[in-house]
């Protein structure tokens, strides 16, 4: 069944890395939750910031917009940022909008 899944995020801090796991549906309603969680993490310039999208079921321009602002903020601070484990359906939207090259290393 294609049931909507509530957006959730979990942060895992390791030495030198901070990984944020996103799951469920990231839409306009859940966007503020992600923005609030990312704000303090964006300041941690001494470690790599990674968004893991393995369990993310939905995204639209709201979520992509947040990724763009995190990307720009990290770039301005010369701090590493990457998005990993992008599911095919979400990858398709990233490719369409042209954001893929900015978010991934290869």
């Amino acid at each position, binding site marked *: 069944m294609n049931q909507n899944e509530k957006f959730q995020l979990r942060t895992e801090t390791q030495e030198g890395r901070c990984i944020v796991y996103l799951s469920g*549906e990231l839409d*306009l*309603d859940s966007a503020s939750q992600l923005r609030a969680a990312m704000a303090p993490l964006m300041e941690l310039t001494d470690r790599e910031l990674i968004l893991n999208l393995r369990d993310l079921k*939905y*995204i639209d321009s709201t979520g992509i917009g947040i990724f763009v602002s995190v*990307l720009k903020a990290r770039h301005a601070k010369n701090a590493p940022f990457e998005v990993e484990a992008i599911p095919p359906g979400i990858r398709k939207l990233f490719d369409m909008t042209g954001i893929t090259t900015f978010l991934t290393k290869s």
Partner: protein
Amino acid sequence: MTADEKITLKLPAKSDYLDLIRLTLYGIATKIGFTYEEIEDMKVAVSEACNNAVLYAYAGRLDTEPHGEMEVSFVRTVDSLSIVVKDEGHSFDAASVAQKAEPLHGKSIQDIQAGGLGLYLMQALMDEVEVRSEKGTEVVLTKRLEKSGEMA
């Protein structure tokens, strides 16, 4: 559903209801015979149209005023599904937004911005997108039913 049948949802223009709209779309599009991928495309396009209604149509409304509404209609024609998202708020300048509707390909990090991506995605994911601004805004998103899915 037979030709030209219409289902309409009328709801407060609040982000709480976006998941309900996607669930309804999923139910209707599945019943008509769209593929999983087509339905995923439509979900994003419809959400983009509703996001605009939620964010801009009733901006500036006081908390004491009643909440504005949006209307989402699903119209089945012989060979397509049209989703009509309508609000009665401040209409946004569709022409100027359409000009900004472009992807980020070939830009530098400094130059990229998320504005305009919503309309760009609607256009990329649907077969037809029409934006009418008169009293409020009306966005008509159409996806054609592929012939391959039809029974011989």
